[in-house]
């Protein structure tokens, strides 16, 4: 992990979708080694909040401040984002996809690619086309991509969609390991996560804004 942000602070964040306020005046903070689980009804702005944290949606009001030990960072740190779409090409294999993702982050270590496929239990499917994999397997390839570059911040949008029970356990282990190394994570999911309570907070979004 090149730069290690130690804190994320969100202050009075207002996000607008079309004409109406999706999230208004949301504030929370997150320290290194912890995760925040966003819950809320469909359409309450979970995805938009994650995209705002990634820097793709401009906040209507409020600030998102990433900081490290020396104070606020000028830019958002390198992060891993998993959206509800996996970002995989049906005509490429998991190994090709991960190799490209590694290159995108300036990383050419091929051992890590197989290693992260191993961690999600997809080593046997490494050379099959993504289009031939099941929905759950594709999701696991996308999760392997999150593990791949060891980014300090993970933003995960419904990471458990289509995963089977074993994979959910694997995912939680990986997340816990990430947090123990001082990483941060913001994830939206409705499932109850069995992480150590000191590591996990929940943030409930309401349709009219945050509590």
């Amino acid at each position, binding site marked *: 992990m090149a730069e290690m942000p130690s804190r994320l602070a969100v202050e009075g964040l207002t996000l607008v979708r079309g004409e109406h306020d999706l999230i208004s005046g949301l504030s929370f903070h997150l320290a290194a080694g912890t995760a925040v689980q966003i819950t809320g009804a469909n359409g309450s702005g979970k995805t938009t909040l994650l995209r705002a944290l990634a820097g793709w949606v401009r906040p209507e009001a409020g600030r998102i401040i990433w900081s490290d030990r020396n104070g606020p960072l000028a830019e958002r740190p*390198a*992060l891993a984002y998993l*959206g509800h779409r*996996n*970002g*995989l*090409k049906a005509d*490429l294999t998991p190994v090709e996809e991960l190799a490209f993702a590694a290159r*995108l982050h300036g990383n050419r270590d091929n051992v890590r690619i197989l290693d992260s496929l191993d961690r999600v239990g997809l080593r046997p499917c490494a050379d099959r086309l993504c289009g031939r994999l099941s929905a759950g397997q594709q999701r696991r390839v996308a999760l392997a991509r999150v593990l791949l570059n060891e980014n300090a911040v993970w933003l995960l949008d419904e990471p458990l969609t289509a995963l089977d029970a074993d994979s959910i356990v694997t995912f939680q282990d990986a997340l816990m390991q990430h947090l123990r190394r001082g990483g941060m994570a913001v994830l939206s999911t409705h499932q109850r996560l069995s992480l150590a309570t000191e590591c996990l907070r929940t943030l409930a979004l309401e349709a009219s804004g945050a509590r």
Partner: protein
Amino acid sequence: MLANAVVARDLTLALRRRSRVIQPLIFTLICVSLFPLALGAEVNLLARIAPGVFWVIALLATQLGLEGLFQSDYEDGALEQWLLAPYPLPLLIAAKVFAHWLLSALPLILMAPLIGVLLGMNLPVLHALLVTLLLGTPVLSLVGAIGAALTVTQRRGGVLLSLLVLPLYIPVLIFATTALEQAAAGLDYTAHLLLLSALAVLALTLAPFAAAAALRIALE
């Protein structure tokens, strides 16, 4: 280099769906062969209109692959992954446009001598055709990328894309075809080539940035 990886990825994808590579070629061949059928096989007439015909077909053929340039990456979420990369987005876009050019324009350029002979072009005109294609087609791909980025959220954006982009192709078409006319008349056409080169430089420096801005808006 990352740009290599982007190009290699797009080429791999194209080769796994070969129809996408072959379609523009077949399209060009069919269009070209329609002209002698429609206008009669009078060699003088064909030779006179051939450069213009070829250029119009080149415009339309480049147009074919454009719609999908960013669309699939947008729809399957790959574009979001690009935005996470510590590389400038315009660089990634330039690499993608280069891959598009390799797949749509390069085969056309390689095919040009054959088609030129079919249409009865003489050697100086054929030479001029190749040079104008080499200078002009990158502009088509680059300008097209702006249109493709602007229409990426439209599911059936093909017509809109044509409306946006084809008018912008007109300067290229004019300079290229006048150069070919000059060549056919045995005159010097360096000035037209210089203008085409200027367009190419302009497109190369501005289009990736414009397309990047459009994609960022699309993802917001």
